[in-house]
């Protein structure tokens, strides 16, 4: 099992450091930490804490993208799982609440996986169905209201602490370790990369590509459900309309910033999470700087553009083309 940052992670590490330095420049107390009631506080902890939902989503998303797919439904799955957890929270014990929410996530992932792997529908279309329908399902669960709860157990999921770390952060670290153990501790990682790199060749080598694809969508659903539970626990309620809204895009962005190609193949769990942290440090930095939060969208767009340009296979072509054009110009 390897969790080391591969050599190709240098760019992401560099980007994260630069952004953190900028954050520190706009807010000199950025790296200050203090312990209060057995929990650490500070801007860095804030980045980690706020970044948790997208980090969790990216753990599932990176595997889906590695197989050459995409999952647009994770935001909606967060809403469904959050609604499930919130409506059960005050009547059931925490394990039952979490298990139900995760089971719902698993079912969502299974649905997506069947559409993609068995019925061979294009992933973007297949998951769009649940992206649209999911919020309706969440509405049905909450009966159109914002469901609030007071169960201290579930509130702890969002606001408690484990070894000084906020519970969501501890959960995210746990999920990263678990996913890494499952993916790299078994042959799953290699077989997923092979499937994403060349599905036909993998199939002809005896790889069960269908099972591979099914399992990554299921895992993505479970990760999204967990993110949904945490998001609900954080605000002590479930909002079917807004929980996880647009977060699928942040998750995809995190994966892409983490260096995994949308065409599939090689992936890195650690770098996907790093991508989520890069996005969150930008968000937090802009909040701290006092600039209007709308600026956030612009900065994000610039980062996306930069990353996509850096990865574009046509970049070389364009350079060659302009060089030739310059040469042939009279």
């Amino acid at each position, binding site marked *: 099992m390897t969790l080391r940052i591969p050599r190709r992670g240098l760019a992401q590490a560099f980007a994260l450091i630069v952004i953190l330095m900028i954050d520190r420049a706009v807010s000199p107390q950025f790296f200050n930490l203090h312990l209060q009631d057995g929990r650490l506080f500070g801007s860095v902890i804030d980045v980690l804490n706020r970044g948790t939902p997208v980090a969790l989503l990216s753990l599932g998303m990176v595997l889906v993208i590695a197989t050459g797919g995409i999952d647009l439904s994770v935001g909606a799955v967060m809403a469904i799982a959050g609604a499930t957890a919130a409506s059960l929270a005050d009547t059931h014990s925490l394990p039952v609440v979490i298990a139900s929410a995760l089971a719902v996530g698993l079912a969502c992932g299974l649905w997506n996986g069947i559409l993609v792997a068995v019925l061979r529908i294009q992933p973007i279309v297949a998951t769009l169905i649940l992206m649209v329908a999911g919020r309706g399902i969440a509405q049905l669960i909450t009966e159109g209201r914002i469901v609030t709860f007071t169960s201290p157990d579930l509130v702890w999921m969002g606001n408690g602490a484990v070894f000084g770390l906020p519970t969501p952060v501890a959960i995210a670290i746990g999920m990263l370790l678990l996913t890494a153990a499952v993916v790299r501790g078994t042959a799953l990682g*290699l077989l997923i990369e*092979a499937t994403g790199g060349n599905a036909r060749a*993998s*199939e*002809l*080598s*005896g790889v069960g590509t269908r099972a591979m694809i099914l399992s990554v969508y299921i895992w993505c659903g479970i990760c999204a459900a967990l993110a949904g539970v945490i998001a609900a626990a954080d605000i002590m309620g479930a909002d079917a309309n807004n929980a996880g809204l647009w977060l699928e895009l942040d998750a995809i962005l995190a994966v892409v910033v983490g260096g995994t190609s949308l065409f599939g193949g090689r992936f890195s769990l650690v770098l996907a999470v790093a991508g989520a942290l890069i996005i969150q440090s930008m968000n937090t930095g802009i909040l701290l700087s006092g600039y209007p939060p709308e600026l956030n969208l612009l900065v994000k767009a610039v980062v996306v553009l930069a990353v996509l340009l850096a990865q574009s296979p046509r970049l070389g072509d364009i350079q060659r083309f302009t060089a030739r054009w310059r040469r042939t110009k009279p």
Partner: protein
Amino acid sequence: MSDSSAPPATRPALLDIRGLTKSFGALKALDDVDFTLGEGEIHALLGENGAGKSTLIKVVTGVFARDAGTVRLANREIAPRSAKDALDAGIATVYQEVNLLPNLSVAQNLYLGRQPTRFGVVREAEMKRRAHALLLDYGLDIDVGAPLASYSVAVQHITAIARAVDLSARVLILDEPTASLDRHEVEILFKVMRKLAADGIGIVFVSHFLDQVYEICDRVTVLRNGRLIGSREIAQLPRLDLIRMMLGRELAETTHERAASQPDTAREVCVSFKGFGKQGYLAPFDLELRRGEVVGLAGLLGSGRTETARLVFGAERADSGAATVDGKAIRLNSPRDAAGLGFGYCPEERKTEGIVAELTVRENIVLALQARRGLHRPLSRREQDEIALRYIRMLDIRPPDPERPIGLLSGGNQQKALLARWLATSPKLLVLDEPTRGIDVGAHAEIIRLVRDLCEQGLALLVISSELDEIVTYSNRVIVLRDRAHVEELKGDAVEVSSILAAIAADAPAAQEVAS
């Protein structure tokens, strides 16, 4: 359409290609090829898969840059840098997949980018009138206002041809245009080709249907392994000779010694197929594969060689017959089933079906073994390294770096790594589809030696090759295919190039007179 100035008595050269050369890395896809097309001539360009036909077309039309050689069109040297350049010069190409816009109308497709306008407004009616008149010339009386996609592939092809010719083409290149047409549609296309030829346009026709070549062409040029084998008048070329040009021995080529081992019926049968086949794909066949024996599959392109391999490996599901391994009935519904039974398959399309380009040589080598062991029994990194290094050494894969992405290796080394992928699973049966295609000469001989070695170690091998000389070298038995059926089995001394050629050409009337 541009008129040629004076009507020719004999066919003057329209397109004249000399010494054309193009390499992809170490592979010479075209090696000093000459080609001459006359005015009003229909000229077949023939050769097996990978012979270099498409490369020739792409180099001539500027899609690829050439390494050496000259191209002259009507005595003027041209050097197009893109398909558009070539079109402007007068060379139009229509590929198998029609390159038009299916949602636009036929008329719009014909006049895209040059619609008749008045005061900047497209004159829809005028365009339709012209389009209709243009297609009438081609024997099509259709509603040109309907979307292109609503018509058959043949009509789409003719539309593409009409557009190309109307853009003042003097040379028309058709790369496998008939592959997806039925008999009637082929007739329509041929009528159009004859009409264009009568108008003085030179046509290059790529096809692997020899019947069609004999029906429509004046001349034929054959390529093999990127080299020019020859150019002949079709009327003076018996079919057996043509097939020999495509598959047979090249004089310059070193001939391999035939393996000494003779077929030994005492050897135990390990895999056997009875009445195995699939409707519309391959006629049912019987096939027995024995340990330590190489069975060669020979035939022309499209005769059913690759189809046999895919059925044997479960990549295509048979709908008749049964298969047994060591006498026991087996299920063979997927490559996964086949791999589980100890079969291995190196497909013909190495890039799209063989390698996972982005992964390392090590990962590519262990892939099949790992898939067979299952998720929960991962090979440790040490085991992977050990396996990869063992095969890199054994097969002399270069560079000997297990961590290099396999996509960066040459074709020959990729092929060896794919062999290693299956050898690592200790297979019973290995199916090799064109194992030496697109491989430089050095690696070529090595692969052949490897096939022999494997056979001696007791593996059963089923090998497809369009190089008859090569097949004869290592096969104990050769099965000849024609029209998607196994038609003949040659054993022992009968395994020689001339008898294989005769079997392939057996249905052709021209063959008898030459063979007798």
